């Protein structure tokens, strides 16, 4: 992994921890952004972590671009020595896979898809060498996912599957982006899954929908009253397949203010995870039981 620094105009420093996505690159980015936050560098106005890179917004009237570059480069070696351990949350996200709303949408945009004769799930199963849609849903929901970035639009989580690279589900994005995606669609592009926080354009394959809002500008949803965005980088997500009756029930619970996301605080140790991913994931998921 080679760290690459570049300026985005006179107000942003862009730091690429690695060209390729990996949890190593994500942890390097996370430890550097944490160290930069702790350092309280004058003139830093915002720190934006991404999957394998991050960006610092600064005020060049308060700190010279070359000075902030030197400060951040100085933090790189120190950050490399920090323990890859984070205090975070594991959250169960109920997903109604093969729901009628994403189905209606994907049929509307079939001519923009690689395989107009199949659904997104059928296509995803095939390109991943899986027997059928059920096998794909099982692979998607059997292992947890790391929130490696929050963004694109308000509160949208990018999630990276916590399995060996050869087991990771990979699906190309649509050939041309759609102009519509239902709110709370579970999407997938490249190696990343996402949850569309708002309705709008999108290029990721669509697999299902969750009843659990993750962005609420009104802050009326019970668990979004303190802050309108649910996800944070470092969150761990476990998808739970649900049927339509459970989906409808959950929607009712959300509307009446009774829905509470199933989530627990956990400590995640990247070294232990790398030693035995399956065993470590089982332990993490145990916190949800």
């Amino acid at each position, binding site marked *: 992994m080679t760290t690459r620094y570049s300026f985005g*105009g006179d107000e942003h420093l862009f730091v690429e921890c690695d060209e*390729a996505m990996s949890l190593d690159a994500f942890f390097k980015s996370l430890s550097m952004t944490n160290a930069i936050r702790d350092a309280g560098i004058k003139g830093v106005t915002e720190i934006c972590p991404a999957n394998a890179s991050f960006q610092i917004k600064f005020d060049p009237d308060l700190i010279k671009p070359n000075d902030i570059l030197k400060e951040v480069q100085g933090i790189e070696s120190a950050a490399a020595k920090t323990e890859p351990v984070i205090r975070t949350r594991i959250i169960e996200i109920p997903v109604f896979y093969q729901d009628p709303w994403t189905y209606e949408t994907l049929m509307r945009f079939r001519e923009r898809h690689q395989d107009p004769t199949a659904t997104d799930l059928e296509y995803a199963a095939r390109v991943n060498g899986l027997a059928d849609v059920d096998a794909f849903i099982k692979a998607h929901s059997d292992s947890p996912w790391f929130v490696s970035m929050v963004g694109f639009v308000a509160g949208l989580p990018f999630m990276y599957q916590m399995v060996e690279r050869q087991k990771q589900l990979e699906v190309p994005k649509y050939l041309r982006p759609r102009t519509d995606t239902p709110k709370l669609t579970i999407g997938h592009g490249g190696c990343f899954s996402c949850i569309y926080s708002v309705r709008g354009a999108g290029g990721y394959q669509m697999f299902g929908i969750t009843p659990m809002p993750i962005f609420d500008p009104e802050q009326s949803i019970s668990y979004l009253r303190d802050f309108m965005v649910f996800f944070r980088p470092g969150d761990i997500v476990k998808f739970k397949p649900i049927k339509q009756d459970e989906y409808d029930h959950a929607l009712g619970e959300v509307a009446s203010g009774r829905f509470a996301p199933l989530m627990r605080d956990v400590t995640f140790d990247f070294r232990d995870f790398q030693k035995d991913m399956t065993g470590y994931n089982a332990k993490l998921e145990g916190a949800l039981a």
Partner: protein
Amino acid sequence: MTIKVLHPGLSTTVQDLGRPGYFHLGIPVGGAMDRLALRAANLLVGNDEGAACLEAVFIGPQLEFTAPTRIAVTGAEMPIKLDGVEQPGWTALEVKAGQVLSFDYLKSGARIIIAVAGGIDVPLALGSRSTYPIGALGGFKGRPIAAGDELPVGAAASGKAGVSVPEALRRKPGHPAELRVLPGLYWHRILPESQASFFADQWKVAPEADRMGYRFRGGQALKFVAREQPFGAGSDPSNIVDSCYPYGSIQVPGGKEPIILHRDAVSGGGYFMVGTVISADMDLIGQLQPNMPTRFVEIDMDGALAARADRKALLQKIRAALA
């Protein structure tokens, strides 16, 4: 007092200087596309420079004022009328109760800023009154204004009508427009011949140009340095592992049409970027119409900082002229 919206224009939103601090969660800074125009409009009517105004693009709204006040319209050149009588731009105007503000066709530029003494008094959302329509956040009910809306106005400070911003201090794009760009980010992904053509070619603004981003056409497609795509990046040579996008960054999906991200930018994604428009020139983009010929001009960091200082000096001159 309130402002009654008789006609909303094409897309008119409440904007101030934006909500910095939430881009790491995908919520962009927002705020006026042409910030200098917003600051000037507020200064003209005696507001704080960052008070909330209306920003209208291409077509002006029709507004009725329920009480006497002062207003100012800055930014694009779009003939201003009060009860049908033409009024000067960049000037503090006295408005009587019941008078109607309307506009003729746009002559040059793209966006006007309408300031009213006391500012548009919608509730703060994450520290700003700016409208972020995708997130239904801020502004008037999280959306562009519509006919029948009644916009609340805050308490006005004192001020006097008739003062104006001298012509020489009104900043407008040239023809062709020139946007200064600091190469960087993934600049190394394209061949030297494409690095040269990007700056040599004349581009023009595409119809897909809004607060989120401005697309350009007409230049040669960029050619990529050959490589095996990194894991997670996607198969197209213009793809990268999804990263943050700086404000002003220029992504070129497929190497074809550059897109400059603006105030309502998406915060990240999977397209490589060739560089970033410098902070001093961001306001100019907000005044570009579709089909406007545009050149990208290479600049280094020292040049970017000098341009930033020039722009600050211009703002100081406007402040001094209106003090």
